[in-house]
């Protein structure tokens, strides 16, 4: 994927999730209050994952480094920038997930866990300010939805690429032959 494709993907994903510039400002405005709580969000996230037997093989022996990466990502969620580079980075994260063989449902499941925990946190922070609470939850949902969509796009492409590689290996076809065959049936 080139930069133009990422710009297109970013625009498409914003349109879908409704993630706006105003929401970016809301997220940036939350950072001071929410950053101190992010390690707890990450801990709570991984403690749930550790209870899921299918998830354990992906966590064993890597939990500390995974937590660090997770916190770094959460910090970015509340600081931005949400530009093409962010889209590209999240696309690569999806790609890495495919390479380690992570089942596709893990991404949506994991994002739901994060969303639930952050919503609880926002509820505690803004218990006396329902307007701010509503705006904050909407912005968090939008950026998490945006991130999930980008990762799933990458997941789909990487999955197809992997399956194609397997098909080519099994059939003995070269990539060029496959491309010629595909273009003959366009």
């Amino acid at each position, binding site marked *: 994927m080139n930069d133009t494709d990422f710009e297109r993907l970013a625009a498409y994903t914003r349109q879908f999730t409704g993630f706006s510039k105003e929401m970016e400002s809301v997220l940036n405005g939350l950072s001071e209050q929410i950053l101190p709580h992010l390690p707890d969000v990450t801990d709570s996230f991984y403690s749930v994952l550790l209870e899921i037997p299918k998830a354990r093989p992906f966590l064993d022996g890597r939990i500390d480094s995974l937590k660090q990466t997770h916190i770094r990502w959460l910090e970015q969620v509340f600081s931005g920038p949400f530009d093409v580079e962010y889209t590209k980075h999240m696309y690569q994260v999806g790609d890495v997930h495919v390479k380690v063989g992570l089942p596709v449902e893990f991404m949506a499941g994991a994002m739901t866990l994060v969303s639930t925990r952050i919503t609880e946190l926002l509820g505690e922070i803004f218990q006396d300010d329902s307007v701010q609470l509503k705006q904050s939850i909407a912005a968090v949902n939008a950026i998490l939805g945006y991130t999930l969509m980008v990762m799933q796009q990458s997941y789909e492409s990487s999955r197809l690429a992997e399956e194609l590689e397997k098909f080519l290996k099994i*059939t003995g076809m070269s990539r060029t032959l496959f491309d010629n065959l595909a273009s003959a*049936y366009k």
Partner: protein
Amino acid sequence: MREDMLTSILSDLNGSSADIEASAVISTDGLIMSALLPANLDEDRVGAMSAAMLSLGDRTATELSRGELEMVLIRGSQGYVIMTHAGPEAVVSVQAKSTAKLGLIFLDVKRAAAAISKLI
């Protein structure tokens, strides 16, 4: 020049039996080098499909311990498609009528493939 020579070999092949309806020389990547095909057949499809079938034939022969692939034969209700290598870089694909005497056709196809492999 080389294309003319390939076409000449195909022309001889098509002329060797009234049962041969079409033939083509294709790169192993599926691109047509030379072809004598009826107008209703798409050259790109014949090329890519033939090379793909032969590639799969190679793999099947190896996987099922059948030794080196000699040819791939497809028999349909309207006739045959015969594909074989012409050296390491090319494929010959021939279409024949359902009434064709295959022994003679195989011989002619082998001869044509040998001549083509010397040219490529």
